[in-house]
Structures are given as C-alpha cells and as structure tokens.
C-alpha cells in the first residue's frame, strides 16, 4: 500500500503529530497551562475517536507498518495509557512549572511513538520507533529540573538503554546478514533453513536484550528500579505500563513472525527468562521500602508472568499477553494513582506513608487494596483473569514446570502485596487525614477501579472485544 492510500488509515497518528506540534507552539504563548493540558486531552480524545478497527491486516507504507488486530489493540492501549498518565500528571505538583506544556507535548509524541512500535513490521522501522520511544522516555524521566534523583535516573536510563539498543542493532545486522532482508516475514522464511540457525539464535538473543530492556526482563531489568524511583511518579506509572506493553507487542511480533521457525529453543530460553524475571522481581520486592521502587520490582515480576504467554508462543499465549496487559494497565495505573495521591498528601514516597490509611481515608485504602489484590491475582478481579490466562496458556502447552514456578512466585508476590495491605489496615494511623482527592485523580481511580472489577466479574465482555 503506498503512502497516499495508507494515510487514511493513519489519521489518529497524524492527529497526534499535529496536536503535539500545536501544543509545543501554544505553550510558548499561553501562560495558563490548563489550556495546554486541555488541548492535549482534546488531541488524545480526537485521536481515540478516529481509531478504527481494520477489517483485514493492512500493510501500510509499503508494509513498513502492519496494522492488524494485534496492532489495533495496542493503539487503544497506548492512547488510554497516555490519557490516564496525563490525568495523573495534572495533579502532580512537581511538574507544575513553566515547562509544563512541554511535558504534555512530549506525551503526545510518546503516544505517537507507541503506536509506531505497535505497528512496525520492518527491522528498520522497529529500530527507529523503539529508539524514538527510548529517547522520549529519557527526556521524561529527567524532566524535573534540579532534581538530583531524576537526573541520575535519566543518565542511567540513557546509558543502559543505548547500550541495549546498540546490542539489538548488532543483532539486527546479523539477522539482516543471514536473511538479506529487513522484512520480518522474509527473515522468518529464511531462518526456516538449517544453516542459518546458529546465527539466527544469536540474533534473537540480541533482540531479547534490546527489547528485554524495554519490558524489564531479567537480567536486563537492572535499570528499572533506579529509574522508576528517580522519575516523576506519573512518568514511572507510565513507564511501568506503556513502553513495557509495547515492548511485549513488538517482541511477540518478532518472535512469532521472525523466529517462529526456530522451533523449541526460543521457547526454552524465554521460559528460563520468564522464571528468572518473576523470581528476581518477587524476591527483591519483598524488602523494598520506597513505594515506587516497590512497584518497580512488582512490575518486573509481572513482566515475568507475561513472558509465560510469550514463551509458549501459541494462540492462547498471544491472547494471554493481551489480556494480562490490559488487566495490568488498569491495575497498575490505579495503584500508581493511589501512590501519587498519597505522595501528594504526605510528601513521602515511603511505604510508611500508607500506614493506617484505612482510617485516614477509607475509600482510598479500599481502592488500593483492590488494586493490590488484583496485582496479586486474587479473583474476582482483573489481575486474576490475566493470571488465569497465562497459567492456562502454560498448561495448554504443557509447560508444567513454568506454571509451578509461577504459582510459587504468586505466593511470594501475595506476601509483599499484603505488606501494604497490612500497613493500610492493620497498623495504627499515622500521618494526616486526607481531604478530598484532586478531580483528575478521582476520575482515574474510578475508571481503573470500575475496569478492574468489571474485568474480573464480567471478563467475557472484554475478551469478546480483545480477541475478536
């Protein structure tokens, strides 16, 4: 499909681009940043309105982009993630300065980059979009001026990310050399033939490094806790969800199209990585005392569960990734929303800020409890449906060891999630009683709570829409 034809399927992305530039421009002239924020939301809403499900898989721009149902899901995913993050940012005090508009503009670019990642179908495009995403992330992490931690986080993120990208690029060059093409499908076809297999495996490993960094897969996860702690909390929330999800999307596409013909070894490696990731994440999370760091390790562990779906590389595995990610999106953003609220009210990022929350703000505490239970995978909440799906995928593919390890890990995870529940409910109150929460956070909380509950109780509604 040529450029002109493709453009009409590309309207939401174009809106985002135009909106982003517009926001940057307006930001120069307008003092009231509420207008800028309103404009970003408007852009996102418009973009959301124009998202249309493709009837068949569309090879846009000479098949540089591949818009299928899979990508379509992630378009929604990216837009919703950005939308919620923006709502969270509005009530986050440290961002309120003269560069506020820039922050919003960067997020519109971010949305654009996320969609590119979701649809990219060519090594070149994959590299470019992932780098785009990374660069934006570096900037957002280091956004806070004169914040020692933020700057440190940004530089660590940048160094770590760039090295991983370079390794992935090296892997891409090897894949290119082996197959003579940058098209994923061609690469997949070539690797079907035996002589290329060792090279293909090395290339795949390098891909895993570059994208594993994005999804914070062990042992390429080391950046995550530091960066999550240093970044502004809304950005942390965002990073823990959107780039990770898109990383899974593109990793799945690469594995399923490019390296499927390698047979069992990729599955084995991914299984090992999955076990390692969830175990490391869970074990380290136990002793964390900083809320953001805590959630960072939790999100590493969650990545381990999602990797189960990837490791089995089946249809059910794919579905399980989508469903887990959706559940995770709302649950984790909900948890972060509470974390931001608590941070705003107490000025403290430590877990101790949660002690006795149930007396100080029963509703907030109850919501947090729901999100934590969902993260722990307790039915009937969204997180359980996700966990159920990955277990199902693993068992269907007879990855019994993986499922057992995951089950044990879930218990460990429950232990530390319940640390916070315990703090909120079982320890005596300390700290201020909450006044009303800011509206934007309230909106986010209600939205995420409703989805988390609804997805747990009536999952079929969501499954219908995701899996159609």
């Amino acid at each position, binding site marked *: 499909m040529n450029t002109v034809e493709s453009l009409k399927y590309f309207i939401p992305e174009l809106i985002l681009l135009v909106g982003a530039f517009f926001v940057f421009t307006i930001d120069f002239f307008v003092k009231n940043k509420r207008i800028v924020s309103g404009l970003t939301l408007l852009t996102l809403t418009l973009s959301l309105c124009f998202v249309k499900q493709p009837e068949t898989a569309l090879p846009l721009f000479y098949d540089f982009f591949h818009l299928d149902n899979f990508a379509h899901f992630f378009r929604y995913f990216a837009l919703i993630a950005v939308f919620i993050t923006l709502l969270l940012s509005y009530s986050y005090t440290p961002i309120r300065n003269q560069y506020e508009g820039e922050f919003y503009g960067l997020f519109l670019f971010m949305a654009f980059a996320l969609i590119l990642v979701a649809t990219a179908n060519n090594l070149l495009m994959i590299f470019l979009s992932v780098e785009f995403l990374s660069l934006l992330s570096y900037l957002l992490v280091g956004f806070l001026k004169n914040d020692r931690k933020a700057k440190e986080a940004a*530089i*660590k993120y940048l*160094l*770590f990310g760039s*090295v*991983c990208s370079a*390794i992935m690029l090296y892997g891409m060059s090897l894949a290119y050399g082996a197959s003579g093409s940058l098209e994923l499908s061609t690469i997949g076809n070539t690797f079907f033939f035996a002589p290329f*297999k*060792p090279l293909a*495996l*090395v290339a795949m*490993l*390098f891909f*895993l*490094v570059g994208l594993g960094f994005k999804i914070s897969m*062990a*042992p*390429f996860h*080391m*950046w995550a*806790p*530091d960066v999550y702690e240093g970044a502004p909390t809304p950005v942390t929330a965002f990073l823990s969800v959107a780039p990770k999800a898109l990383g899974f999307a593109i990793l799945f596409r690469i594995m399923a199209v490019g390296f499927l013909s390698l047979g*069992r*070894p990729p599955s*084995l*490696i991914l299984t*090992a990585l999955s076990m390692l990731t969830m175990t*490391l994440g869970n*074990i*380290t999370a*136990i*002793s964390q005392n900083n809320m953001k760091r805590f959630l960072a390790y939790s999100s590493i562990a969650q990545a381990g569960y999602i990797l189960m779906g990837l490791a089995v590389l089946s249809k059910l595995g794919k579905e399980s990734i989508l469903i887990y990610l959706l559940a995770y999106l709302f649950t984790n953003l909900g948890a972060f929303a509470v974390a931001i609220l608590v941070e705003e009210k107490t000025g403290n990022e430590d877990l101790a800020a949660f002690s006795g929350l149930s007396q100080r703000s029963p509703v907030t505490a109850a919501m947090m409890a729901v999100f934590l239970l969902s993260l722990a995978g307790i039915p009937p909440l969204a997180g359980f449906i996700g966990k159920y799906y990955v277990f199902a995928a693993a068992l269907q593919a007879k990855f019994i060891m993986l499922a057992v390890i995951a089950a044990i890990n879930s218990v*460990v995870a429950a232990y530390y999630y319940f640390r916070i529940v315990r703090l909120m409910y079982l320890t005596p109150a300390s700290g201020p009683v909450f006044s009303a929460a800011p509206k934007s956070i309230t909106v986010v909380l209600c939205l995420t709570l409703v989805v988390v509950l609804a997805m747990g109780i009536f999952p079929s509604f969501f499954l219908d829409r995701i899996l159609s």
Partner: protein
Amino acid sequence: MVTSDQIILVPLLPFIAFAVNLLAGRWLKHRAAWLSVAASTIACFIAIPVCWAVFQGNHFANQGTWLMLGQTPLKFGYVMDPLSSSLLFMVTIVGTLIQIYAMGYMHGDPRYSRFFAYVSLFMSAMLTLSISDNYLLFFMSWEIMGLCSYLLIGFYFEKDSAAKAGFKAFLTTRVGDVGFLIGFLTLFSAIGTLNFSEMNALMANAHHAGAPLHAGLLSLAALLIFCGTIGKSAQFPLHVWLPDAMEGPTPVSALIHAATMVAAGVFLVARSFSLFMIVPNVLPVVTVIGTITAFMAAFIALTQTDIKRILAYSTISQLGYMVTALGLSGLGAGTFHLITHAFFKALLFMAAGSVIHGTHVQDIREMGGLFKKMPHTATTFIIASLALAGIPPLSGFWSKDEILLSAFASGHKIVFMILLLTAFMTAFYMFRLIFLTFFGQPRNLKVHAHESPAVMTAPLWALAFGSIVIGFPGSPFMHHWFQKFMAHMVHHPEYEPSAFVMACSVAAAVCGISLAGVIYLKKIRWAQKTAETFSFLYRLSLNKCYFDELYSRCIVKPFQSLGRFLFGFDARIVDGAVNGTGHATLFISAVKGWIDKYIVDGLVNFTGTLTHFLNSIVKRLQTGFVQNYLLIVFIGILVFLVWELKII
C-alpha cells in the same frame, strides 16, 4: 395391664426427670428429688410386671431402624429375656431405694437438684443398657453411665482430689471402652450384625456346625469386648479408678460403684456369652483376670482403714468373683452373684454412708462402739456383711457357693483354692470393719454419732430384707430356679451341687469372722504383731499393692522402685497404660509440640527465610552503578549464548 412396649418408658421416665431437673433445677430445689424418685418408682412398677412375665417364661422384643450401616439397617430395640429381666428387676428396685436414701443423705447440699439430675440420667442409661438388644445401643448407654460416673465422682469438684478421681475414672474406663468399641466393630465385620439375638442364633448355628465362622476374628472380638469389662468392672489391671471413685457422695458409690454400673461389665460378658463360649482361649483369660482381681482386691482390703475404700476393694474383689464365674462358663453363677451382690453391697454402702452421715468421719480407727448409737444402721450393716461373707442362708452364701462350685466342678482346683482363700479374707476384713466400727469403745471422743433419719434407715431395712431373701431363687429350696432360668439364654454346663463345697465355703466364712472377732475384740495387739511379722505383706496390702504410688515414683525416682514390688512387671504395664496415661502423654505431646514448632513449621518458615536470604543477595546486585548493571547484562548474554549453542 402392662404391654411389653411400655418397657420403653422405663428408661424414658428417668430421662425426663433428668431433663427437667437439669433445666428447672434452680426452681425445683428439694422437689427435684421427688421428681427423680417418682420417675424411678414408676419405672419400677412398670418394669416388675414385665420382668415377672419373663420369669414365667415369656420373651419380648421389638425394634426399629435407627441408622443404615451400608445397606444393612441398624435396628435399635429392646429385648426382655432372662438376663435383661433379672438385671432390670435388680436395678429398678435397688436404684429406687438408693434414691430414696439419697434424699436424706444429700439433704441441704447446694447442688441438690443437680445431683438428682445426674442420678436420673444414670438410671436412664443403666435401664437402657439392661434392655438394649444390640451392642451399639449398649455401648451408648454404657458410655453415658461412664459420664454420670465421672460427673458424680467429681460432684464435690471444689475438692481437687474429687476432680482428679473423676478424671482418672473416666479416662481409665475409656481405655477399656475403646477396646470394647473396636471389639464390636470387629464382631460386626465378622458376622455382620450387632444384634444380640441374631448373634446368639449365629453362634448357636456355628456351635452345631462344629467350628466358628471366623475363629481368629471372633477371638479378637471377644478379647476386645472383654477389655470393656476390665475397664468398667474395675478388673485387674484397670481397677485403680474404683477406690478413688469413693470421692463421690456415698449414694453414688452405692448405686454406681457397687450395685449397677460396675456390674454392667459383668453383664456385658454375660450378654456376649454365646460368643465367649464358642471361641477358644478367651474364657481362660477371663478366669485368670477375675481370679487375680478377686484375690488381690481382698488382700488390699485387709488393711485399709477408710470405711468406703474397704467396701470399694470388696466390690472389686466380688466383681472378680463374678468374672471368674463367667470365665468358668458359669453364666448362672456369675449373674446370680451379680444380683445378690447388688443388694448387699448397696446396703453396705448405704449403711456406711449412714455411719459417715452420723459421725462425719470415714476412718474406722476413729469409730468404735457405734452399735448403741446407731442400731438400725449397725444391724443392717451386719446383715449385709454376713451375706457378703457367705453365711447361710443369706443371699451371698448361695451365689458364692455357686461360683465356688463351678470352679470346683470344672476342675480348676487352683482357682477354687484361691477363691476359697479370698472368701476367708472377705469374711475377715468385713468383720474387722464391723468390730472396729460398731463394737468396742469409742476411740475418738470428738465424734458424736447419731442415728440417721427414717428416710435413710427405711431403705436400709428394705435392702436388708432383699439381701436375705434374694438368694432363695438360686438355692436348693427353690430347686435352683435361677440357674435353670438362665440356662434358657445360652447353652452352658451345669454342675451338681456339692456338699463339700458348701462346707468349705461356710468354714472359710466362719473362720474369717472368728479370727476377726478374736483379734479385734480381744487381742488387738495381735493385729500389730502380725503386721510386724509379715511387714512386707502388710505394707503391700496397706499401700494397695503400690499401684498408685508406682506412677509418682516412676517420675520422681524412676529406678528406685524397679525391683521393689511383687507385681513389679505388671505394675509397670499398669503405669504405662493407665495411671500415667495423662502424664506420660503430656511428655510425649510436649515433644510433639516441639516438632510442630520447629520442624513442621520450620520447613515453611525455612521457605520464608530462604526467600529473605535470597532477597538480601539479589538486592545487593542493585549497586546503583550503572556499569555494574551493564556487566550483568553482558554476563547474561554470555550465559545465554553458551546455553543457546548447547541446545542447538
């Protein structure tokens, strides 16, 4: 006119009295006793005509399904045959009389209504047991009697000794009960029924066929069922609870621990007699246990000074007689002694209770010369003692004679000799008690004795009458009617009366009485001298063969007591199985608690500790230096590269 089904009312009425007394006792106060006595009396009047009909040769039974065991319905019902009617006859009469007596004895007690509630429950259970037609119902009422015994022994529960005695009694008998339970489970698995009549029929068939169906299983069943008897009837080696049970109020001792409940163990063997007859090797065990019990208890009774304890050991001894009789296939003899013994032993206890009531002491060394002050009590006591000693023509003579006869005629000469010796000792210790209590001079001037009220003495006389005449149905004057009556039950050997045995029996009794008279009325020093001469035997007897002390010594000085006892080895078993059960198990359970805490829980906690340990390691990887992170990435790549190249 009484129909046979109304027999159900017999246990039901006391039960109603129990329920009402328990729930409304607070408002009934002393009327509680009237209720219980009334229930018991009416039950008596219902029961006696039915029993009479059975004595005429009738047989009643009825049953209804209670439970499904697999596809087999388990039917509960009553059966009125010679055995149950005899027991029912005895229990209703003796029970009613004792309750009347208790009205006087317990007068003024703060838990008066509670006492009568328990007694009524006991009556209800005992009567159910008497007429029950299957093992399960039998066992259920058996257990409820155990409960009542527990509650009533511990009736004065503020006294630690009473509370402990109740505990000991329940637990000790429970050991036997569990054996009984497994016993009839075994029986059920062997013959598929728990019903007495069906069992009897099956056994009779097997007897005719020559060999039992499952000889091994049935022997096991019989032995285990006999465990129930050992516990309940206080046979060696589970006898230790009965003397302690004297902590209960005296009417309870009379009713439960002399006349009825302890006899239920003997009744159980009688009930299962067809089973015991058909399996080999079990009856000798029964005989040996019974003989040892009879002799040992009589020996201990020789030197006891507590009036109730003497009677308690006497009860154990007499129960041993009954068991021996059954072991020698003397169903008629054993049952006969059961009935007669109930009368005179209940009387003895009640009279002893009257003495205690009048003097407020229990130690016979502090009594003396009470005959003049309490003539009714003393007279009835002496009548009962004569019956117990076996002086013709009182009831005890006839029944004891039957037992001696079965030992003699069946050729067990050693058993016969031991039993004869026991009879001698029985007469001796009873009259030692009488002479010390009622004759001579008062030894403690602080004791101001007075005769008990009529409500207590009237039952004494009634029972005294019973003690005299109840033996006649088994005597030659009535042509051994009772033995023939019992022979309807199960086929068992009958022996011709022997004048030699009678003479021996009377001689033993008379010797015992005279010796006691000589020593305790004239030459009191002889007693001391004898005690010094045979100091070993004396101390053995005085200390109840050390059954109780053994345990505490085992804890305090475990090795000292080792070589010291005549029954050392047996006592050791007793210690382990009975006396020390509580404490020995406490030790074990302390160890188990430790296991629980450190091993089982430890495994789980270990997982937690391991997690935390790993946590502390993994956490350290997160150094904060970005290049360390990259190094880990590099190492990760290398590891996976190697692994990848290996799996290809």
